[in-house]
């Protein structure tokens, strides 16, 4: 369970960005969480609402876009969801897979009033 440390890092970044922008009230925060990260979106949402309670960020909403772990076969160029994290092309059985998405853990944007 390290979603609280992730939340704290996330809120630090949010405060920095808000300061740069000249203050205001945070309405919402949009983030991307890849399937390969060791981060559970439900736990992260829970930590987020607990961490902002009683702070100037209270009331802000967190939107999490979950990014599936996606690979591309270097033989047949098909893109596919790496189900169960298993490597291997479901179309041509090719062993050489390039990971193209799924390890994201980033803040996309913030809505400020």
């Amino acid at each position, binding site marked *: *369970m*390290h979603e609280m*440390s*992730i939340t704290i*890092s*996330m809120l*630090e*970044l949010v405060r920095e*960005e*808000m300061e740069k*922008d000249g203050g205001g009230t945070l*309405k919402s925060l949009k*983030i991307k969480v890849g399937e*390969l*990260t*060791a*981060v559970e979106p439900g736990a992260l949402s829970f930590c987020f609402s607990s961490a902002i309670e009683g702070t100037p960020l209270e009331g802000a909403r967190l939107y999490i876009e979950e990014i599936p772990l996606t690979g591309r076969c270097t033989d047949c160029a098909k893109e596919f969801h790496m189900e*169960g*994290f*298993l*490597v*291997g092309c479901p179309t041509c059985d090719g*062993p050489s897979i390039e990971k193209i998405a799924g390890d994201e*853990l*980033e*803040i*996309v*944007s*913030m*809505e*400020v*009033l």
Partner: protein
Amino acid sequence: MHEILVGAKILKKNDEIAAANREAFSGLGLFSINLISSPGSGKTTLIERTVERIGKACRLAVIEGDLQTELDKERVERCGVPATQITTGRSCHLDAHMVSHTIEWLRGLKPLELLIIENVGNMVCPAEYDLGEDMKVAVMSVTEGDDKPLKYPAIFHASSALVINKTDLTPYTDFNIERARENALAVNPALKIFETSCTTGEGLGDWCDFLTGQTGRA
């Protein structure tokens, strides 16, 4: 209401400190590994047996990560190798900032060739935090399930090597080493796999050769 486009990694700060650690390690000329496993897979014993074998020929240092106590640091020191302990309190993983505090200590030990970092026993969270190491090594033991790579894929994905430990206990378990290898390679075909027993010494030679090979003194 307006939108601020951020586009920043949430662990940006950790990654920046990890990059500085990596530069410091490389400046010291050492190769570093980050050992990650569940509690009880035998990481500390593996380190003890490893430093007993190569500690004389290869200048190495050990960083121990645990929630509490300096017990593991003391165990490694008894093998004649410098060790330091990071106690994380309630945190379930080491992060780059904690490791950055050991750099002055490492500088004082120059010259060094190998740094072994033992992460907090946990298969999930440490996968997310880059410490600045050259290589992550996953450890699992035969008293766990051979399906562990499928259940905790992130760490097997992020590691370059896997040690399957306690192989001497295999006859007393349902653990199937071949199946464990297949499961690990299904998640990460590039994994270099070692089978070790810290009781009989089986496989430790290959593991130690691999480590010394990384430091360029095979």
